[in-house]
């Protein structure tokens, strides 16, 4: 397989008499500080103005959907948090919610509340870094360091709860890996004060900052209908005026018991997306507040032994008796374990970047027959060409960081 060189775009030979500059082709390539990942754009430019932009992806295609067809449902949880590595918990929760809806399992109230708290915390982690990186791309480097100090505090919380900073793999079908530590709510409250302070500082730094406003207002604007046609979801769609949030449209895990607004803007440009993300962080904090207040006691796993592992004492012969041992054996051996009934389901959830949907087809065995993920970055990045054509090259950098493209999720 010789190295796949890209055939250069055919540049029409302009007539000799024309004194204008010929089109220049620039490679905004896979190894580039501003692409935040392995994306490639071949840009045809007239001077600074972008005439045509062709995006090329697949530089991080890791065959997620193929390897998941060789794993049981609980094993695919470890696969799911390698997709969107900015907010891995949202992926784990999305997968667990999808399989539970397929099997018709109702998780315990404590598990649902813990999942909502962790999902909203990782939404804050994703948004704060996106705003930080966007500011860094436009020149304000210090904001990225502020964002990272907040993220480090969130890493401490995630590590305290799940054991890992980034690849958490915390949820299981029908419950969680383990319960939250006793000092969980006090640690989260401590983060919330410093988080609010840092976010308002970042807001103060960027909101009326002439450089930031000039670089982002009116840049890469997309109208509401066009965003729907492009399949944009999440902050991009809400910035274009369409008030659509899967947590409100199709509530899961009890999101309908919390009051929070859906921040939307009208212009649909880079500045509007930044505003939506910042306001969404405040909304997430409101949700975490309410969830912490009503965090119920009780078990975190569904009590159905066919799905959830029996606890240690249930397994030992004197107390648990023969059933505990048999269920433990059945849960781990081939052909046993979590086996949803034959059928398929598409369950969307609201990830920080947009609608993260799992389309699972089960053929009755414990391995998914088809494990399809609807990644928000895939459809958001498709609109990048439309947003940056006609603008300047430096505008396309601002637009790219406002889309918050995660290559792992993009190429799956």
């Amino acid at each position, binding site marked *: 397989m010789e190295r796949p060189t890209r055939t250069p775009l055919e540049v029409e030979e302009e007539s000799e008499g024309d004194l204008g500059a010929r089109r220049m082709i620039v490679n905004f390539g896979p190894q580039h500080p501003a692409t935040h990942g392995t994306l490639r754009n071949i840009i045809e430019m007239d001077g600074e103005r972008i005439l045509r932009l062709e995006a090329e992806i697949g530089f991080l295609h890791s065959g997620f959907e193929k390897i998941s067809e060789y794993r049981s449902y609980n094993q695919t949880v470890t696969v799911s948090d390698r997709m969107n590595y900015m907010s891995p918990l949202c992926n784990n929760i999305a997968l667990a919610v999808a399989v539970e809806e397929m099997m018709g399992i109702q998780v315990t109230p404590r598990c649902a509340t813990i999942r909502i708290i962790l999902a909203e915390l990782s939404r804050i982690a994703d948004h704060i870094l996106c705003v930080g990186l966007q500011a860094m791309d436009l020149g304000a480097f210090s904001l990225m360091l502020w964002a990272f100090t907040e993220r480090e505090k969130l890493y401490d919380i995630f590590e305290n709860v799940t054991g890992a900073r980034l690849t958490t793999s915390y949820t299981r079908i029908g419950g969680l890996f383990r319960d939250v530590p006793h000092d969980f709510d006090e640690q989260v409250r401590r983060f919330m004060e410093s988080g609010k302070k840092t976010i308002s500082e970042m807001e103060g730094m960027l909101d009326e900052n002439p450089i930031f406003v000039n670089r982002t207002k009116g840049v890469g604007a997309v109208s509401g209908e066009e965003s729907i046609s492009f399949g944009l979801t999440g902050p991009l769609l809400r910035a274009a005026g369409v008030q659509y949030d899967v947590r409100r449209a199709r509530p899961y895990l009890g999101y309908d018991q919390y009051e929070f607004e859906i921040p939307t803007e009208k212009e649909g440009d880079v500045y509007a997306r930044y505003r939506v993300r910042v306001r969404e962080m405040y909304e997430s904090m409101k949700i975490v507040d309410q969830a912490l207040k009503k965090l119920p006691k009780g078990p975190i796993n569904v009590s159905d032994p066919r799905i959830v592992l029996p606890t240690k004492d249930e397994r030992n012969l004197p107390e648990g008796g023969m059933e505990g041992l048999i269920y433990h054996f059945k849960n781990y051996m081939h052909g046993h374990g979590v086996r949803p009934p034959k059928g398929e389901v598409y369950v*969307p959830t609201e990830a920080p970047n947009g609608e993260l949907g799992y389309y699972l087809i089960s053929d009755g065995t414990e391995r998914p027959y088809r494990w399809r993920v609807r990644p928000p970055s895939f459809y958001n990045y498709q609109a990048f060409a439309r947003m940056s054509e006609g603008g300047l090259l430096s505008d396309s950098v601002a637009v790219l960081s406002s889309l918050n493209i995660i290559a792992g999720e993009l190429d799956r």
Partner: protein
Amino acid sequence: MDPTTAVETLQQKFPEQVISAHEHAGQPFVHVKRDRIVDLLKWLRNDGGFDMLADLCGVDYLNQGMPERFCVVYNLTSTASNARFRVKAFVPEADPVIDSVSKLWKSAPWAEREAFDMFGLQFRGHPDLKRILLPESYGGRPLRKDYPLIGEGERQNFPRYTKEAHGKAH
């Protein structure tokens, strides 16, 4: 329009297209033939109110007793009424071609390119149908059920640089 009425009206409007209607875990969906898929989806979008194509993906039903081997799944959403609906168009293995819906939604082209890349499904009328996730010189169709998990040796096929030789040593 909520999905259940969508299923009935579809069965009346396109009786010969709709193969069967199903429902699983509270989610109705419909199996259709591939011939008039564009008109069917256009009707669903314009009159059915399903204005967003949330996801388009391919499925390989190798000897699973489905009408055909390949299937293209369209997951539709209505942002106004929050309703969801799924249309599954079946494509025979002998001639895996189906009309492209890139004229109806701008989110379709890349998803169709991925289905082409992973399953080898051709989309008639697609603006620029070529591989999207794998290199153009890649031979196989990985997500097909009969394709080996570890591929056919493409991952070893690169020149090797060693420190001593300071140059290509392949």
